[in-house]
């Protein structure tokens, strides 16, 4: 793919976007990249960690930096947030028909799903019914109520957060539904230095959040999503995706390996990740960075130890294979 002027500009904007978000979320450059990767791959992201690590702020900042603040105005991006609770009902998400006194008819009151960026906070606290309602929307990008099918927005990106499963009052997401999330990342605490910096400067950070600027327009994001498909993937990288997926199926410590759909998702994510990193081709670093976030939550392990060791082991072998490849063409 030749790097066109447009792409170059879009890539530049992407970098701006990352920088922009980083003014608010300190020390989370990698996580920001993953979020953008999911966005560009037309997928959704699941963030898991303890409360207070900055998941919500991240989602908010992202939404804000790609929206003009006003929804539906000059291609701006709308942002909605839903706090999931055990008593939440599906219609709270989708919306419902309410009776319009003036027109004497039921009109459809759109729920918060009809947005561009949706922050589904603490998704595993809602009942499975609600979870599945959301995930169906995510998969099909449309909502059917009664006879009517409502299309969701062209740009529909869900950032879901969840508390660690061990915590009380949670409904763990079933594996099939986890599969809908392209990427699952563990947000994690920032390092000591950054944390100190945050404490010193929390007012400034707050201020930054208030005044975050739009750096990418909706159109640009859609364009970038198009560009993603054009990122060049070397055949050896495709092979290594195949190898990793196969290895998870054959691994003695993994009960359920990755599906073919996972592999395709993996490829999509690789392309998007390359773009996020300012490249128009995928390199082994991308494979290295993405394998765990993309595949880990789709696998079922025999035990906890396997969860820690199995996938990194597979990845290590594959990275080594890639590293030892002799250059194929000049």
């Amino acid at each position, binding site marked *: 793919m030749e790097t066109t002027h447009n792409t170059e500009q879009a890539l530049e904007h992407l970098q701006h976007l990352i920088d922009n978000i980083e003014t608010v979320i300190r020390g989370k450059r990698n996580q920001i990249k993953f979020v953008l990767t999911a966005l560009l791959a037309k997928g959704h992201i699941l963030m898991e960690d303890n409360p207070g690590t900055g998941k919500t702020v991240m989602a908010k900042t992202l939404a804000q930096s790609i929206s003009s603040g006003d929804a539906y105005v000059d291609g701006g991006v709308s942002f909605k947030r839903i706090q999931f609770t055990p008593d939440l009902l599906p219609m709270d998400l989708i919306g419902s028909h309410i009776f319009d006194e003036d027109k004497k008819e039921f009109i459809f009151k759109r729920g918060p799903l009809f947005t561009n960026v949706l922050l589904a906070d603490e998704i595993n606290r809602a009942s499975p019914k609600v979870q599945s309602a959301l995930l169906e929307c995510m998969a099909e990008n449309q909502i059917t109520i009664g006879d009517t099918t409502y299309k969701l927005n062209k740009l529909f990106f869900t950032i879901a957060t969840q508390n660690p499963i061990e915590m009380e009052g949670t409904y763990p997401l079933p594996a099939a539904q986890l599969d809908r999330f392209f990427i699952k990342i563990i947000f994690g605490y920032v390092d000591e230095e950054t944390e100190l910096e945050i404490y010193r400067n929390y007012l400034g950070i707050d201020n930054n959040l208030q005044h975050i600027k739009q750096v990418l327009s909706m159109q640009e994001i859609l364009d970038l999503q198009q560009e993603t498909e054009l990122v*060049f993937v070397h055949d050896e990288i495709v092979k290594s995706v195949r190898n990793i997926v196969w290895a998870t199926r054959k691994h003695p410590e993994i009960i359920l390996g990755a599906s073919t759909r996972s592999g395709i998702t993996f490829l999509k994510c690789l392309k998007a990740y390359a773009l996020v990193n300012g*490249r128009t081709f995928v390199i082994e670093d991308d494979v*290295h960075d993405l394998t765990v976030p993309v595949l880990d939550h789709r696998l079922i392990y025999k035990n906890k130890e396997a969860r820690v060791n199995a996938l*990194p082991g597979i990845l290590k072998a594959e990275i080594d294979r890639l590293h030892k490849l002799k250059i194929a063409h*000049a």
Partner: protein
Amino acid sequence: MLAKRYHSLKKEIAQYLLLGVPTVLLAAYAIELANRYLALLENNWFRQSLFFAVGMAAAFSIFARRYRFTPITAIMLVAIYIVRQFIASGKVGEFDAFFWTVRFNTYALFFVTGWIAGYGFSRARFFSIAWSVILLAAMSFVIATLSVVKADMIVVTFAPMLVCTFYIIYTSELIRNLNEDDPLLIWQILKRLGGFALVMLLLVLGLMKYYKPQFEAVEKEWGAGKKQEDNNNPSNSLTRKDGSGTTTNNSMGLSGFNNKANKDSVLFVAKLDNFFPDGKTPNPLYFTTDYFTKFDSETQTFEKDSLRPYNDLFSPDVSQIPLFFTKQDTTLLAKPTATKFRRVATAEVYKHNLSARLYTAPSTGFFVQPVSVPDENKDIYRSAYRAKMLVSELNSAYFVYNPAGNKDLEQFQQQRFDVLRKSKGFESLPRNFYDYYTYIPRGYDYDSIRALANQIVKEKGAVAPVDKIIAVRDYFLKKDENGQPTFKYSDNPGIPGMPSANKLTYFLFQNKKGYCAYYAGATLFMLRALGIPSRVATGFLTVDRSGKNPGWYWFYEDQAHAWVQAYFPEYGWIDFDTTVPNEDQQQAPQPDQTPPLTSQTAWLVANGKTISVDTVKKIVTMEMEKMLYWDQPYDFTPRPTFRMDVSMAKITHDTGQVALSVLKPGENIVAVSYSTTFKDIPPKETDSSYSLFKKFPDPSPIDEIKIMLSEEEKAALQQKQKEEQPTDWAKVIINTLIVSLLLLLIVLSIPYITFRFLTSKAATARERGKQVYWQYMAVMFYLNQMGFEKDQLTPLQFARTVVDPHFGTNMSEFVNIYLKAKYSRLSLSERDTTVAQNFYPSVFSKLKQQLKFGFRFSHFMNVKRTIHFFSKPNIYS
């Protein structure tokens, strides 16, 4: 590591088949060997091997399932103990109990050994190596104890051991790293084992082929060295091998057994012109090679003594004398130690297996002349020589081997005893001579021998020395009241229970069994105790077994012998053999075969430089330098021209027979004539060399011309001979050290060579992408050697997080370019090239600045890192 946590059936099966079965087979072989030597094992190797196998299998199956070693082994040992106690108490009778517990203990021992081996193989990582070392040590031990070391045997014993060692190490590692999820598991294993077998086969064959000469050298060295060590050595044959055949030993010990493994091997054939006064009956004489005059009471070994007084031993190295040349010891003729009944006899010795160096002749030799072996016999006899010696007419081999009923011989015996009885007393002998040859060590043991000798003589009432000797001989031949001989012949007489006990007194007073060395040794001391000067002679006993060819004698290896010579003033050394006949082994006497064609007497042997060669008239002329005429040497100065008629002559060169045309003027030759023409011209005392020369016909008939080697050829031959000389161990060690140092150097320089290879690749790569690749490889390799391993990181991470912060380089950008070249279809931009150019050569200087030389040097030699750099990672680790 995870994959190994749980028990795996495939691995267990692989252990049984690949490690267990070969180990059990090997152990069975070892146990079988042990059974041959240890009576305790009761020759029950099959059952013992079975116990070993069961122990091993049990250990495999239990430890493959991750049980703990200590408690289970403890339980097992307790069980064994209880069963043992039960057997000990349950069996009736003391003997039975002892017998059964011993047997049980043996089985238990093998079971436990198998058990431990099984445990080691399935658990302890380095056990396979330990096990191999044990095997090798055991084999070395077995080889060290062997009496006859042969190169083939070293090969046969060590090669399987070596292969086995490698096999066990390789297989245990293979099983350890088995990936049992591999669908082609069996094929993979077979493939690897097949490859391994092939490599091993090639390796061993190559080694064996390459080292065969060395092995043979070791064989020789070992053979010689062992015999020289001391008499604690269990084998003590009278003969040994030197470089060119069998020869006699340098010392004669008194323990162990007389190895007659090769008794059927013909050593040499000799023609001896020694006949009884009737002129028809051959009088065989023992062939002497050396004398033992000294006895080392520490090691109880008879030794040669080069400082013995009145040494009359003539012992030239025959192989060093050119054909037809002679070597004489005229001092022996000038100052004979005896004068009466002496005459000169001649012998021709045709060597088959006998060492080419060895000179052996009866009595006192003084002349040797290597002669050519007749063509018809060349395949049997390797070399031959003519010997002259002074023999006593009183001497004969018929001292013990007295042919019964031969009147002439019996008469001869009596006659010679009568003569010897008249011998002068020993007072006439020089003091030092008499003292030397009657010396006995002090001590109780020798006193008892002295007492015995005196008693024997007293019983017989013998006065004359020869009667004393006969009395001693009769003592050994005496029969007890049951008509059984008191002394018996035995090749393996055994040794006294106390290691330090005197073997001669043990032989004389207790055991009364022995081979020739015992009889000769005991006789020597008894004679010396009686004041008769005597020495032990070694060589070959001569048996006249054929009436067809009188004067011809065959010598087999079992005729190697030791006997006593006693000195009689005026008559000299006379042989006395007191060894009793071997009654147990009255095998059919070795047949005497057809003797080799007698080579004619070389009347004339002349050497000099060729002047002309006429191939048509068959006339050769030469400048005669020296001449041996009727065994008398003559010199010529100035050198006369000698015309030779070579029409009947055989021309030989070092390589064999050649045509006359090969002979060129200027070459040195030796001309030999057997012609009767010369027989008719006997030299007179008054003849000078020139007066003789004038009597020769012109041209003189010559039967053989040998072209002498030129200087270069001689040098080459000497070189060759040098190589054949015993291995210089210091040299071997130094060479080994040098070679291993070189090898070490090569191994240590592998990283550097690899690095140079990578940088040169980077320098010569044409395409940019390839160039970047090789540059990247070179940098990564260098960093890897320096201890900065990429390990689990991706290249970019490695550059960004390890290299750049550490060295202040710009590697991450370079890696970006490398990755771009590797994974994208984009061509490298100008900017990329500049970055790469800025980075690549300068990175090394940057690294060098920051790392000390010593650090770099020591790290660069780390071959392990190099291997690590190029090796595949283990997926599950």
